[in-house]
């Protein structure tokens, strides 16, 4: 028993201090195991924590426990639990030195809090970056949307001007204008593509297409382009590749033309080429490798990682023009196709871009349903030539587009045309006049094209409610187009459009 008391003294007493204090905090009696205080000392003078003694002495509580209080010890800081009991002699203050325990707890709390704060700040940083990216992409989308209307007017007016009597000098100017417009249109499409890829708004449209015919178009286009630059173009196709395949023809075309245009841009002599080989054929899929080669300037090894970044034109000579978006678009489109662009390049010798993709080959039933796409050429259908004129209503608030539409359609001699600027007047006109077709801008200022279409489709009179409606929009996203069609529009064209496409669509709807 005595031994046990000795051990308790050894291990506990050194960590516990007892003091009796009066209501003002003056020490009446104490030991000195934890804090350097002695009878007669004032606890509030020793440390401001003990100012609470006065408050406690006034209160009704029999005892109070204050945990984890930091106090100055004999040699270093003490972290203690302070237990205060009301006693007849005054207040009994018991000080438990738990420094070791609390220091261990502090280390755990430090790690936990730091980790939580770090994680929170990472989430915030990511949110901020996402918001910036979203703002950037929305800005690009809105900006390109705004550009489409004036660009559409410029393209159409240039075409119309080209059909008027001109001097040879004026013809040259028109050719230059057309060329510039076309470049502008391509750049706009590039910017739209990259922002659509970045915002995940681009979906693949998988359809059956004639793969060999598709490559023939590329052969024809790039043989001519290469020849113009004094280069040669070689296309090699593995003849084991099936003729018809299922895939997004348009996006694959975009990938290949971006790579080939890039090859052309950076090659001053020699050749560019496209090689397509069959890696393997499994189930109903073919695994193809596409390789685009050039004998151009090549890319320095340190610049290779940069070439797929937007607006980066690694090692581009000053005379090579472009937005620097071609290769990032390729990278983004291939990612959509679950593929990845690879690059081998030697400075001064040329480059080789390649990627592997899997394309399905169609089932016999799918192949039967497949229809060859016809080129968009404009010819008046025989039934339109018999002198019958159709009555069109054009609802368009943009004066430029309105003039172009009016002049072009009137020049065909097939139409009577009414023009309305204000969407609010459409219903009145539709009810009063019997139109054969309505061409409607979907982004009208007061009432949207979708709302107007729904109103027309909701009319009780049968011939009126089924008037064909052709929507015109600058919003090229697939979900927007689907929304316009869902509202009741028969067809939607994206601005800028070719005059022939417009006329073919108009006649298709009139028939």
């Amino acid at each position, binding site marked *: 028993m005595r031994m046990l008391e000795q051990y308790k003294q050894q291990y506990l007493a050194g960590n516990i201090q007892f003091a009796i204090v009066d209501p003002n905090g003056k020490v009446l009696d104490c030991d000195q195991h934890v804090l350097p205080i002695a009878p007669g000392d004032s606890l509030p003078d020793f*440390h*401001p*924590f003990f*100012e*609470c003694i006065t*408050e*406690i002495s006034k*209160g009704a509580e029999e005892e*109070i*426990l*204050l*945990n*984890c*209080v*930091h106090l100055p010890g004999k040699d270093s800081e003490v*972290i203690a639990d302070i237990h205060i009991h009301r006693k007849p002699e005054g207040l009994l203050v018991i000080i438990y030195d738990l420094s070791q325990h*609390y220091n261990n*707890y*502090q280390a755990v*709390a*430090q790690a936990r*809090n*730091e980790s*939580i*704060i770090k994680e*929170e*700040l990472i989430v*915030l940083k990511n949110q901020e970056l996402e918001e910036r990216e979203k703002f950037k992409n929305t800005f690009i989308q809105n900006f390109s949307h705004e550009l489409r209307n004036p660009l559409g007017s410029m393209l159409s007016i240039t075409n119309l001007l080209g059909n008027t009597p001109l001097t040879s000098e004026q013809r040259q100017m028109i050719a230059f204008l057309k060329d510039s417009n076309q470049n502008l249109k391509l750049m706009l499409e590039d910017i739209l593509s990259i922002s659509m890829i970045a915002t995940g708004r681009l979906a693949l449209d998988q359809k059956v297409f004639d793969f060999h015919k598709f490559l023939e178009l590329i052969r024809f286009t790039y043989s001519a382009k290469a020849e113009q630059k004094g280069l040669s173009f070689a296309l090699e196709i593995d003849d084991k590749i099936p003729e018809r395949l299922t895939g997004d023809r348009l996006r694959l075309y975009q990938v290949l033309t971006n790579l080939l245009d890039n090859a052309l841009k950076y090659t001053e002599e020699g050749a560019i080429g496209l090689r397509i080989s069959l890696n393997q054929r499994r189930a109903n899929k073919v695994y193809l490798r596409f390789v685009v080669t050039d004998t151009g300037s090549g890319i320095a090894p340190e610049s290779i990682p940069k070439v797929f970044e937007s607006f980066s034109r690694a090692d581009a000579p000053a005379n090579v023009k472009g937005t620097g978006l071609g290769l990032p678009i390729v990278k983004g489109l291939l990612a959509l196709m679950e593929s990845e662009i690879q690059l081998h390049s030697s400075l001064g010798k040329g480059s080789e871009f390649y990627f592997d993709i899997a394309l399905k080959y169609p089932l016999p039933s799918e192949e039967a349903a497949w229809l060859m796409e016809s080129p968009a050429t404009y010819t008046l259908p025989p039934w339109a030539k018999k002198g019958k004129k159709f009555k069109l209503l054009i609802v368009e608030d943009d004066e430029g587009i309105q003039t172009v539409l009016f002049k072009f359609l009137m020049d065909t001699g097939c139409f009577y045309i009414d023009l309305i600027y204000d969407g609010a007047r459409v219903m009145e006109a539709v009810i009063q006049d019997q139109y054969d077709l309505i061409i409607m801008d979907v982004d009208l200022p007061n009432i949207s094209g979708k709302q107007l279409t729904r109103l027309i489709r909701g009319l009780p009179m049968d011939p009126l409610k089924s008037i064909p409606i052709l929507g015109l929009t600058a919003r090229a996203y697939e979900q927007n187009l689907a929304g316009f069609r869902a509202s009741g529009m028969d067809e939607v064209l994206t601005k800028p459009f070719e005059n022939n496409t417009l006329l073919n669509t108009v006649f298709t709807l009139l028939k």
Partner: protein
Amino acid sequence: MQRSRKIVVLGHFGVGKTSLIRRFVEDTFSDNYKVSIGVHITKKVVVLNADDAVTFILWDLEGTDEMEQIRDAYLLGTHGVVFVFDVTRPSTFQNLIRDIEIVRQKIQGPPILVVGNKTDLIDLEKLEQQMLENTIPYDFLTSAKTGNEVEAVFLKLATLLNEDA
């Protein structure tokens, strides 16, 4: 006449309560974050005018996400509260009204000043606009790092306590 007033400084962890007190008491600042556990108590005399001063006994409480968890014993005899949040971390002020309500239930009567700290890390004009838009009811926006508005918080509290006395 000099009086002692117990001021409790509380809020979520990592908002800069200790730094705020250190700036006010010692006029120093350290970028190193050391988690406070339990309670640290310091003292500072606030001079209101030539004839009047008040001694603040500043209780720097361990930060917590749940105001309900603050030990009542720490709050006994409190004369004023400084509730601190971090302007860069929404989690420390997104439930501000509820947090203040809980503190008010625990300490009935004494004034509570709400302080958004770490303004040196953020555009002050944008922050004020953001606080206004999100109806965050703060009294001061401070930076313990630069010292901006720190003194003003405690002077305001001293004035409020003086008016109540």
